[in-house]
């Protein structure tokens, strides 16, 4: 009943807008936003397809044939699939466990746990990977040294420079995606069904397995796909942990193909399977979530009770602390130590203490200043423009301002299927030639970041507008205000906090971006992540640690100040 009523109202309203269209002065703005978006996506991807089939004379499939003929490239594809699958599985296990524990159990210090999961989310995976080389290098790694000291053993506990090491580190920085999905679902899920099972005599754990788990299944699969895709697109972590062990993934292989003499045709041909895989998985995810999705779970109506963990409360809490130690405490500690030590592998005694890494980084090393300026300039610019565009599109699609507006959703979410490296390949080919040469300026990075962050920005903005009922807008329209006035006086104030959160999301996404930047930077347009990667290649541990800490401090400063301003949690969902 309610559904059909809402639908009826929606149709009525859509009809009204259509009739008003002719006189609506804001229409060009909406269309401009749409065109802009199409331009950002179609041009680079179009170039990838063209380049992948363009031979010396005319059309050819040589690029693709070579990808599948050349052992190394095929091996990289295979490795990537194995790695991403495992990352997905581990991320789901950790993410689901933590997501459920903080929403539905009596775990102690839940707020702190949430904040620390957010810290893992904010930590750039390449920085985490770098920290882990210092923690679990088989011989000099701190944890392996500790292990030898404790057990008197000769070998090592864990070698981070391996496929397993890479999987674990990538999972540690992918699980927050699953966590937020699961936490959301668990929060929406009422306890009614669980109560029913309880009344019928099922025990706590049986309820969890037979009722809660199936209810959460779509979110689990969705989370798996999200983590899988996230790890598929990572560049820094595999380059830092995989390459030293002679292990290539698709992203590092594409990057290697840019070396002189560049093989753009192969890079393009290798990008296409990655693109298709991402598309297919997202289609699966949409189907799964679309069909069963949150509607089964229902609104917030029902009652929720916390599951008592009983004797497991403390062991589970220790497990959670352990996981967070791996993703946050230990990496941060080793970065701090490396930044203050002359020799990072030695104990931090007075003899080994130095501030030279800081003075060198900030006062001598020529790249620092330029990179800081570029990074924050791009962060602020992209976040501001991105939030603006995302808000416009979300507003159009949410209020169905013109016919076919919902297709805009497709374009806003489309970049989700394009891994950063692939996007960069497309942008590189598209914007290194006339008529538009953006390569060599920060604008090519701006375009890349804007495109890459659009889906996240859009979903954030969309959620914001969904929560603002159109009644108020309608009321002021009826009273004679035009749409711009309504936007300014009614919608904007209501959407303010949601949009600031969107801004914050995009900003943090931008300042840690590496996989697209690494192909698009030039010396003038270096950003901090690229400088860190450069330094990693030369083994400048101390300077990397200093820049890494800078990146973390700024990210947390932004998150915390926004939280403080809005007095609400931005990244994690509300409790």
């Amino acid at each position: 009943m309610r559904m059909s009523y809402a639908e009826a109202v929606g149709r009525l309203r859509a009809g009204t807008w259509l009739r008003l269209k002719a006189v609506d002065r804001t229409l060009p703005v909406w269309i401009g936003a749409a065109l802009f978006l199409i331009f950002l996506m179609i041009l680079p991807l179009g170039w990838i397809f063209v380049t992948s089939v363009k031979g010396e004379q005319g059309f050819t499939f040589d690029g693709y044939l070579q990808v599948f003929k050349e052992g190394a490239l095929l091996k990289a594809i295979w490795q990537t699939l194995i790695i991403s699958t495992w990352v997905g599985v581990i991320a789901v296990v950790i993410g689901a466990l933590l997501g459920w524990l903080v929403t539905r159990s009596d775990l102690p210090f839940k707020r702190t746990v949430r904040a620390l999961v957010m810290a893992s989310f904010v930590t750039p995976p390449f920085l985490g990977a770098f920290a882990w080389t210092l923690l679990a290098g088989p011989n000099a790694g701190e944890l392996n040294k500790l292990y030898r000291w404790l057990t008197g053993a000769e070998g090592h506990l864990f070698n981070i420079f391996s496929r397993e090491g890479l999987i674990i580190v990538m999972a540690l920085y992918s699980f927050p995606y699953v966590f937020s999905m699961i936490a959301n679902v668990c929060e929406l899920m009422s306890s009614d069904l669980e109560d029913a099972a309880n009344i019928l005599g099922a025990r706590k754990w049986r309820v969890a397995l037979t009722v809660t788990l199936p209810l959460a299944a779509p979110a689990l699969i969705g989370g798996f796909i999200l983590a899988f895709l996230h790890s598929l697109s990572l560049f820094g972590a595999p380059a830092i942990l995989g390459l030293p062990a002679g292990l290539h993934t698709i992203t590092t292989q594409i990057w290697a193909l840019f070396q002189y003499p560049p093989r753009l045709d192969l890079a393009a041909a290798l990008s296409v399977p990655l693109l298709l895989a991402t598309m297919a998985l997202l289609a699966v995810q949409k189907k799964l979530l679309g069909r069963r999705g949150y509607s089964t779970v229902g609104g917030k109506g029902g009652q929720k009770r916390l599951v008592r963990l009983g004797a497991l409360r403390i062991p589970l809490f220790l497990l959670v602390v352990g996981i967070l130690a791996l993703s946050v405490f230990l990496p941060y500690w080793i970065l701090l130590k490396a930044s203050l030590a002359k020799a990072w592998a030695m104990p931090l005694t007075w003899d080994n203490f130095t501030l030279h890494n800081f003075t060198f980084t900030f006062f001598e090393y020529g790249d620092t200043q330029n990179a800081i300026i570029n990074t924050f300039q791009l962060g602020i610019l992209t976040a501001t423009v991105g939030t603006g565009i995302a808000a416009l599109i979300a507003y159009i699609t949410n209020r169905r301002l013109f016919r076919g507006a919902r297709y805009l959703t497709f374009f806003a979410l489309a970049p989700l299927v394009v891994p950063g490296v692939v996007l960069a390949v497309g942008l590189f080919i598209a914007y290194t030639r006339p008529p538009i040469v953006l390569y060599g300026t920060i604008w090519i990075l701006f375009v890349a970041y804007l495109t890459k962050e659009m889906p996240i920005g859009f979903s954030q903005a969309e959620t914001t507008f969904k929560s603002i009922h159109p009644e108020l807008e309608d009321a002021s329209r009826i009273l004679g205000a035009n749409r711009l006035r309504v936007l300014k006086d009614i919608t904007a104030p209501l959407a303010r906090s949601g949009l600031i959160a969107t801004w914050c999301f995009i900003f943090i996404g931008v300042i840690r971006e590496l996989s697209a930047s690494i192909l698009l930077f030039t010396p003038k347009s270096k950003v901090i992540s690229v400088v860190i990667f450069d330094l990693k290649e030369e083994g400048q541990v101390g300077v990397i640690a200093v820049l890494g800490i800078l990146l973390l401090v700024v990210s947390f400063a932004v998150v915390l100040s926004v939280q403080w301003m809005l007095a609400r949690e931005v990244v994690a969902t509300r409790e």
Partner: protein
Amino acid sequence: MKKSIGLALSALLIAWSATALAQDAALIEAAKKERKVVWYTSLAIPSSTMLAHLFMNKYKGIEVEVHRSGSQRVLQRTMQEISAGIKNVDIIHTSDAGHFVLLKDKGLLMKYVPKAVESFPAGFKDSDGFYYGMRATLSVIAYNPKILADKEAPQAWKDLLDPKWRGKQVTAHPGYSGIIMTHVLALVKEFGWDYFKALAQNKLHLVQSANDPAGVVASGERPVGVNGAEYFYYKTLKQGNPIKIVYPKEGVPLVVSPTAIAKDSPHPNAAKLFTEFIFTKEAQQTLADREGLYTGHPEVTYPKDKPVLKALKLLAVSPDELEKRNEEIKKRFVEFFGA
């Protein structure tokens, strides 16, 4: 009569040095107007930063923009920018002499002969005057004496093939470093590709820069470096880290790293001034004293604890051969070592 000849001669000399001075002054003046020079270099970050600051202190008002990366990355960057029509780089400096053969052939270099190089040995000079060896180093073996006793440490290239080193060695990458590119070619010419095929059986830790093995060995992550820039090992050792350098008797690859001015240099005068500067005895002596490098300058003296080059059997490779075999070396190395 004699007197007048002497007078005429000294007048000529004065006039000549006056013009030279005037030329210098004119160059400095012109360079200062350009305000900066952009240097794409493969010289280690601390060393290139030091050299830049030395120049900036001497010629106030001219900024040196240092962009340091591996030799192969420097070439990649240069070529990418050229193909996109970007004119940014003034001076190109890598440790892969083959790059300069390529760049010269493509007409991308500016002909410029710095004054000081006249007295340099032939191996440091391009006969057509496009590029000159700014520094030289060796690619050597190194080990961590805290972990390995001297008598069990490897002393020769062939010692590194022993299976007892499995999982204990680190190598840098010819696809990144010009020093390692030169190293691989020199050893392939001595021992053939079989040497590297056998070496790869030891499951080496793969890093990029020829400077990185020094840190890896010093930290103990891998006790043996199967190659690496001698100057960076030496520098790391001098900072009190546990490193011993081995100069194998079979021969040590000699790496001469050229520098050249880009043909489309946006700051040509500053580029010339900087090029003049890096070949002065002052700058070259500093590279020897503070960075542990060898140079082509005949008057430069070296730290007492560094071997004299003449006392070593040096393995030199020609820039032409480096250029020709660049792709082959990268490809085969990746084939053996996996990435």
